[in-house]
């Protein structure tokens, strides 16, 4: 899955946004945010609208063509880079408590994903240790993802060792 951001130019009349949203939902995309840039009206009176969404990267081209097919001007689109990354250690019965579900709790947010993982399982039925690297679209989102993971780990009785955040304000 990729996170992309599309800027379209919409006429200031009802039903326009729907023409953008419909193709997204048809292709299984997940909308993360819609921002109307009303203060940046084009000379022809159109309003730039930025839509951020999560979608299978293979379907991006198809989505753009489909939106254009509805007569919408697509000014630009680009994949959003994951801007903030951190590594977190998990210690406990990581495998037995459904590792897939633990990772998915991050991936399904749409703004963060597990980009790397390294697991060590010393013995069967003993606690495992995993280093999980999470990336998110921004620092704030990364913090949200970490909070989410903390809730999941609390429930599953997994010790979560977070990095010491050294940033000063």
């Amino acid at each position, binding site marked *: 899955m990729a996170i992309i951001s599309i800027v379209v130019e919409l006429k200031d009349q009802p039903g326009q946004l729907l023409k953008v949203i419909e193709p997204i939902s048809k292709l299984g995309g997940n909308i993360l945010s819609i921002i109307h840039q009303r203060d940046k009206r084009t000379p022809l009176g159109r309003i730039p609208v930025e839509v951020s969404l999560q979608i299978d990267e293979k379907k991006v081209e198809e989505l753009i063509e489909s939106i254009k097919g509805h007569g919408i001007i697509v000014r630009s689109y680009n994949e959003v880079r994951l801007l903030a990354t951190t*590594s*977190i*250690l998990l*210690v*406990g019965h990581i495998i037995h408590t459904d590792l897939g579900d633990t990772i998915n709790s991050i991936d399904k947010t749409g703004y963060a994903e597990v980009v790397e993982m*390294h697991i*060590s399982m*010393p013995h069967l039925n003993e*606690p*495992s*240790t*995993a*280093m999980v690297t999470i990336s998110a679209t921004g620092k704030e989102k990364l913090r949200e993802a970490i909070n989410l993971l903390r809730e999941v780990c609390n429930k599953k009785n997994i*010790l979560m*060792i*977070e*990095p*010491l955040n*050294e940033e*000063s*304000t």
Partner: protein
Amino acid sequence: MIRIAIFGFGAVGQGVAEILMNRERIERWIGEYRVVAVADSKGSICDENGISLKEALEAKKKGSLPPGMSVMDIIDSIDFDVAIEATPTNIETGEPGLSYIKACLNKGCHVVTSNKGPLVVAYKELAELAERKGVRLMFEATVGGAMPLIKLAKRDIAGNEILSIKGILNGTCNYILSRMEQERLSYHQILSEAQELKIAEANASYDVEGIDSAAKLVILANAVMGMDVSFNDVEVVGITSITPEAFEIAMEKGYTIRLIAEASRDGLRVSPRLLPLHHPLAVRGTLNAVLIQTDLAREIFVIGRGAGKIETASAIISDLIDIYSHDSSN
């Protein structure tokens, strides 16, 4: 002439007595003084003309102080100017130290304490009482042992807003984690080693479950960050479930693990954290280390010995000197 009473005569109280026996060293700072009472839970020695610390230490070495007045009786009936309170810590009730400190402050005496309990339970009440009575309540020894922290934060970086305090406040945990880092042995193996070396107590749960660190964090948050928090406001996770593999995997990314106490606007936490190996807080052995982040002075690191008889007594002595070096009437 400053009259001193010592309440609590365990390792710390004895350490203070040993330093006070060196008159030449101390009188340079505070002028003439005498110790008029030494008491612990079982006995006491009192004399308004001054007792012999040597005798008190010898009595203790042989077993205990001779039966005598209780601490409360001493506070009621003997005149002294400053109490050094070093009784055992109870972070749930604060007792018996809490009652002793209140009685001393009410009597109009300064108090220097190494006891976390009363401050964790009733910091605000005690601070207000001291102010109302026009006396000082000093507690440098409660956090970070010999490390200058309280007076540093209150005085040396006065005018700064303290944005956060992060650090290692428990030497036992730090010993265990830094040994795990180096030896890759299990938590239980290193704990046994620490117990053999008397670095960890037989019942180490107070340390390894993060309770001691959390108590110190509460004191820092209330006393130097202007918060009004209690022990229950701290989210506490200890070090007991950390595996040797955790260090192995962390090291591959250039990290190690330490138990960090952290107070900021986001809240109070004690938990194992990943630290870059070269981070100044990644100290080894029983050392303590604290990073204070402020708006003007930015980052300040303090590293030092967080426990020990003489080290902790050093903090008490510095408080005692602080009280009297600012009071020209003595």
